[in-house]
């Protein structure tokens, strides 16, 4: 069963279309990259999938549950890292994570154990009592990822999680997300406009001007567009007037 399915999902901001009939699937144990330039509709898609917006047309199914019918319960096994930072700067790392754990119904003991474990896994074990305001943006990002994993989600959504980070930090976060998919079986949907974050074997969905213009294994997308690299394929797919292959 796919972890996430969208069917003919559309959304408009006033008269301006943001998404048009977007259909995609995210499978468990796979790293799915949602690649698109700025303004392609990636954040809108994330907002629709997380119920921050409601789609006027189309459907979203999360782990077999229709999002409209199930409502907020459909988000019980979804972890989200939003594009904009969402940590409370005035609270400590542990307080931020404990707040999130409470929202997801974890008892204090379980929450404390998981906070320790997830922070350690991301190399942030020593930061529990530090105020978020004092941390670098890379550290904050890692804490947001640790937070998104506290309730053991089966679907992890990450919206441009590496924007503004240095290369080693970016690499570490990309590696961690790939490991979550490969080793823990988590379905990962990773929105990005950075081509070097995508690996050949990743499932790739290219979004441009609110439409899916290509999807499949990254290597296969490159082949289908007769390009020599993913960068070239992306340029061809998103060039003005281009048609999906």
């Amino acid at each position: 069963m796919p972890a996430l399915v969208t069917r003919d999902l559309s959304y408009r901001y006033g008269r301006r279309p943001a998404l048009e009939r977007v259909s995609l699937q995210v499978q468990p144990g796979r790293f799915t990259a949602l690649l698109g330039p700025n303004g392609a509709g990636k954040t809108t898609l994330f907002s629709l999938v997380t119920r921050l917006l409601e789609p006027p047309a189309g459907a979203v199914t999360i782990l077999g549950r229709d999002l409209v019918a199930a409502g907020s319960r459909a988000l019980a096994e979804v972890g989200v890292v939003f594009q904009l930072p969402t940590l409370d700067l005035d609270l400590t790392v542990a307080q931020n994570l404990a707040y999130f754990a409470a929202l997801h119904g974890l008892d204090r003991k379980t929450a404390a154990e998981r906070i320790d474990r997830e922070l350690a896994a991301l190399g942030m074990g020593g930061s529990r009592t530090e105020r978020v305001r004092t941390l670098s943006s890379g550290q904050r990002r890692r804490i947001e990822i640790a937070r998104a994993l506290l309730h053991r989600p089966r679907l992890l959504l990450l919206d441009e999680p590496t924007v503004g980070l240095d290369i080693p930090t970016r690499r570490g976060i990309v590696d961690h997300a790939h490991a979550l998919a490969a080793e823990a079986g988590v379905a990962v949907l990773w929105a990005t406009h950075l081509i070097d974050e995508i690996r050949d074997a990743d499932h790739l969905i290219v979004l441009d001007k609110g439409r899916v213009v290509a999807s499949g294994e990254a290597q296969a997308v490159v082949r289908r567009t007769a390009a020599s690299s993913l960068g070239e394929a992306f340029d061809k797919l998103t060039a003005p007037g281009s048609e999906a292959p």
Partner: protein
Amino acid sequence: MIIRFWRAFRGVAWREILRFLQQRERFLAALIRPILWLLIFAVGFRAALGVSIAPPYATYITYDVYIAPGLVAMIQLFNGMQSSLSMVYDREMGGMRVLLTAPLPRWFLLLSRLLAGVGVSLIQVYAFLLIAWFLGIELPLAGYVAVLPALVLSGLMLGALGMALSSIVRQLENFAGVMNFVIFPMLFASSALYPLWKVQESSDVLYQLCRLNPFTHAVELIRFALYLQLNGAALAVVTGALVVFLAAAIWAYDPARGLMARNAAVVD
């Protein structure tokens, strides 16, 4: 299932209290504002404005005793608007997304936030009443307990108003407008600072406005409760206003309408 709701509520309340305790300036400002009114404004008006016998008072009272319940309500009014500011801040800083994507009904999450805000206002109110007591404003001892339900109800009503307003205020910078167009008119066109019969002597229009103002009824609910009496009309108006404001807030935070649809302008 109930335990999940309880844990979430506890988490939301704990976060609000932590934030409040870490913002010492906010606590001080919340206390200094009514104390200044009590020490300066009330002393100045004490000689000019005598307050005759009118329910719930059984005897003549001085002006500073009269405005104490109004200042309690003022603390709650400012706290409600502070919650509104905090929600706008959370929306801009992303914190609201964390709350609204939790796997619980949105009305429950918003109500939890509202109740947590009321809890914070109660800390401020009782701190003020303690200081006022030291300044000579002695209320019936049982009134300090009897006023609690009235404070919860009025705090919820004003908090719900703040929550509904937070959906209208798109940016933090626009919050000054709320101060000018909501807080001050509500405070000054009410019975918080002067009795309504005095207002009526000056202007019947203003008197009618004061009567329509739900804040007036919050003040009177608190005033009567402090003197161990129930003002049924005030209770009805405050409850009705709470239902209306809360419904407006929940509607505004509905993903298909209101705030989320209007303010989500990021199209990456």
